[in-house]
C-alpha cells in the first residue's frame, strides 16, 4: 500500500464546511479547535475557489523535524501522528507547519496553550486501538475499523478524497482528463506524467483522429 494522502479538488469544493462539521462531530473536538477548515481564495469574487485544509501528513514532516521532545511518529501508511503524553505544548510545530494544522486548545490543564491537537487521518494515536483513552485524546480510530477519514467520506461533492495515494491520484487524474482542463497547471507533469491530455503541446486523442 502507498502512503495515505488527502487531495481536495478546488473545482468541486462548494465551501459547505461539511468536512469541518463531520470531523468535529466524529472526534468530539473541543471548542476553539478545528482540525480541518475550508479556505477560500478571492472570496466573493466570481470564480472564487475553496479548498479544505488539514494536516497533509507530509512525507518529510517539518513538525516532526522541529519537535524538541520527539512526540511525533509516522505509521507504516505514512500517517503523521503524535503522542499527547509526550507533547509539552511548546508550539514549535505550529510555526513549522505550512498548513497551520497544529491546533492548541485554550482550555485544559496547560492553560492558554494546551497540548497540540491535529488531524489524525482518523487513525487515533498511540493508545490501544478503539479504546476510550484513545477516543478522549485523539478521537475515533476509523482506519482501525477499516474505514476512511470521515471528512472525505462525508464530502457531498466528493471534492475531498482520502485514502491510498495511488488510488487517490488515479481518481483525481481521471477527473482532470474527463474534464479536459487542469492538466496545464504547474506541477502536473511531475505529479502525474507529462504526456497527458490537457498538457500544453499534447494532442487530445479525439483531435488526433480527425
Amino acid at each position, binding site marked *: 500500500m502507498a502512503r495515505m494522502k488527502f487531495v481536495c479538488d478546488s473545482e468541486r469544493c462548494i465551501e459547505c464546511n461539511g468536512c469541518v462539521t463531520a470531523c468535529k462531530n466524529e472526534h468530539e473536538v473541543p471548542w476553539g479547535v478545528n482540525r480541518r477548515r475550508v479556505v477560500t481564495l478571492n472570496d466573493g469574487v466570481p470564480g472564487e475557489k475553496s479548498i479544505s485544509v488539514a494536516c497533509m501528513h507530509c512525507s518529510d514532516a517539518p513538525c516532526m523535524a522541529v519537535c524538541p521532545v520527539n512526540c511525533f511518529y509516522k505509521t507504516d501508511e505514512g500517517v503523521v501522528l503524535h*503522542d499527547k503524553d509526550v507533547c509539552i505544548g511548546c508550539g514549535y510545530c505550529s510555526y513549522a507547519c505550512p498548513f497551520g494544522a497544529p491546533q492548541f486548545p485554550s482550555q485544559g490543564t496547560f492553560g492558554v496553550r494546551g497540548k497540540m491537537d491535529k488531524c489524525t487521518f482518523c487513525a487515533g494515536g*498511540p*493508545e490501544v*486501538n478503539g479504546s476510550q483513552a484513545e477516543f478522549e485524546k485523539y478521537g475515533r480510530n476509523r482506519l*482501525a*475499523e*477499516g*474505514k476512511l477519514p470521515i471528512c472525505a*467520506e462525508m464530502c457531498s461533492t466528493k471534492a475531498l478524497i482520502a485514502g491510498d495515494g495511488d488510488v487517490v491520484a488515479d481518481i483525481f487524474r*481521471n477527473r482532470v482528463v474527463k474534464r479536459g482542463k487542469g492538466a496545464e497547471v504547474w506541477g502536473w507533469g511531475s505529479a502525474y506524467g507529462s504526456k497527458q491530455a490537457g498538457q500544453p503541446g499534447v494532442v487530445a486523442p479525439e483531435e488526433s483522429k480527425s
Partner: protein
Amino acid sequence: MKHIFCSVALLALLCACGEKPQLLGERTGKQDAPSYSGTGKAFVDGGWTQGDKAGWESHLKARDQYGQNDYSRMN
C-alpha cells in the same frame, strides 16, 4: 564471603554508573499498534477480518472506489 560481597558491591557501582540510551531521533513512550490489527470491536467495515493486513488494504481501496470515485460508480 568477602570476595562475593566485594563483587556484588562493584556490580552495584557499575550499574549506578550506567547511562540510559539517549539516541537522537529515537522516540520513547508508547508504541502504536498497526491499523490493520483492528479495534477488537464489532463496529468495523463489513466482511473484513480484523488483523488481516491484505484484506484491510483491499477494503480501503474498494471503499475509495465506491465511495469517492463517482466516475466508477455512475458509469
